[in-house]
């Protein structure tokens, strides 16, 4: 990440109270952290994909997400107004300060998990981005407009793999089902609203994600059925990521992600 300035003169931030600004900052991080952590997970696969094309696709997706993250963090830094950079926000927070959902931090386990995690996120991500395009906030709208085509490619890619593996061999079907079953418990968290989410949605800036829960499960189920997979019926769902309470995997991700900044503070490329 470098220091190219971003054009973010959107919100009449002067009109916002300190509390509102804080909520906007937290809201932006909520969206951005999902993309950062998923990008990091996908980045781990660089050079480890099952074949060259898939390897390239996964790192391309990672790069798209990282690009979106940068735009969000640059804006968040400006909203906070504390003189921080996008790098400070990405690398210098403690685990409890990251607001990503638990789904995106789940490990790569096997290719079925990589695709199930991606698919479960992409369906949500595209729905969220579509709504964010209507935000009253000019910068968030611009990031969504820019990113939506990228995210539709991601969704197409992951949905195709769900069908290909689900409706593939006995082994691929079993592994795909296993991954969907295991990751299902992390889906419901997407639709929970934090205080920042609620305030920003009411202000017409953020997206009320609770509204498209039904549409989400409907769309996911349709693809799973086409993939000859069983839609899990489990009613047990995990949560906490949005409030900074993460699974045991998060610490390892951050150890990797933050290594350079912890070893050489303030280093730049």
């Amino acid at each position, binding site marked *: 990440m470098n220091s190219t300035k971003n054009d973010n003169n959107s919100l009449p931030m002067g009109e916002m109270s300190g509390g509102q600004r804080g909520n906007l900052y937290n809201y932006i991080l909520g969206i951005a952290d999902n993309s950062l952590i998923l990008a990091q997970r996908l980045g781990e696969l660089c050079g480890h994909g099952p074949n060259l094309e898939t390897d*390239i696709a996964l790192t391309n997706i990672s790069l798209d997400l990282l690009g979106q993250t940068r735009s969000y963090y640059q804006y968040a830094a400006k909203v906070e107004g504390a003189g921080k950079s996008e790098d400070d926000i990405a690398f210098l927070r403690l685990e409890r300060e990251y607001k990503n959902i638990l789904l995106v931090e789940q490990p790569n386990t096997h290719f079925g998990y990589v695709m199930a995690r991606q698919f479960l996120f992409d369906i949500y991500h595209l729905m969220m981005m579509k709504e964010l395009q209507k935000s009253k906030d000019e910068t968030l709208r611009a990031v969504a407009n820019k990113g939506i085509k990228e995210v539709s490619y991601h969704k197409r890619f992951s949905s195709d793999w769900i069908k290909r593996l689900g409706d593939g061999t006995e082994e691929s079907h079993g592994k795909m089902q296993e991954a969907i079953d295991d990751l299902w418990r992390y889906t419901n968290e997407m639709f929970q609203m934090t205080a920042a989410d609620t305030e920003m949605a009411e202000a017409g800036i953020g997206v009320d994600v609770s509204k498209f829960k039904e549409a989400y499960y409907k769309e996911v189920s349709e693809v799973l059925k086409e993939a000859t997979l069983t839609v899990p019926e489990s009613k047990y769902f995990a949560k906490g990521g949005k409030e900074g309470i993460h699974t045991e995997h998060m610490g390892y991700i951050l150890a990797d992600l933050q290594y350079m900044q912890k070893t050489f503070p303030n280093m730049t490329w």
Partner: protein
Amino acid sequence: MLTQTVHIEKHLIPILESVSDPEIPVLSVLDLGVIREAFEENGVVKIKLTPTYSGCPAMDVISDDLKKAFSEIGKEIEVELVLAPAWSTDWISEKGLQKMEAYGIARPLSETHDKDVLLGDKKLVKCPQCASTNTHLVSQFGSTACKALFKCDDCLEPFDYFKCLK
């Protein structure tokens, strides 16, 4: 075609033309359509740059190259990244598209045709080596974020297709 308001001062054009896209070096930043504004104000050259894809790493390189090109002629420069309006493949100049094809990258089709080739299996993308349209998609994701990987079924050469972005 999208309407675009590009404000570039004439005397800056030769220098901008000397800065190329690091990933497609035959294209200048002007051919690529990523320069939205370039003007001189109080002796400082101000440039507004728009990214092709959100995570395009070429943007940082382009920004550095612009700074270098202008500092070589003793000009101070400020580069600002603008996201809206979002860049579109329509902004690549016709000259740029021709250079791209000559370089071995198939040019972006229209939005509908782009969907047909990336989603379905219609044969519309023209091989930049032998001009055959008997080609097929190998991967939606190519060597960079903006390209997809194709293979020609006549000359058997693999090639990049520049994805339509609107």
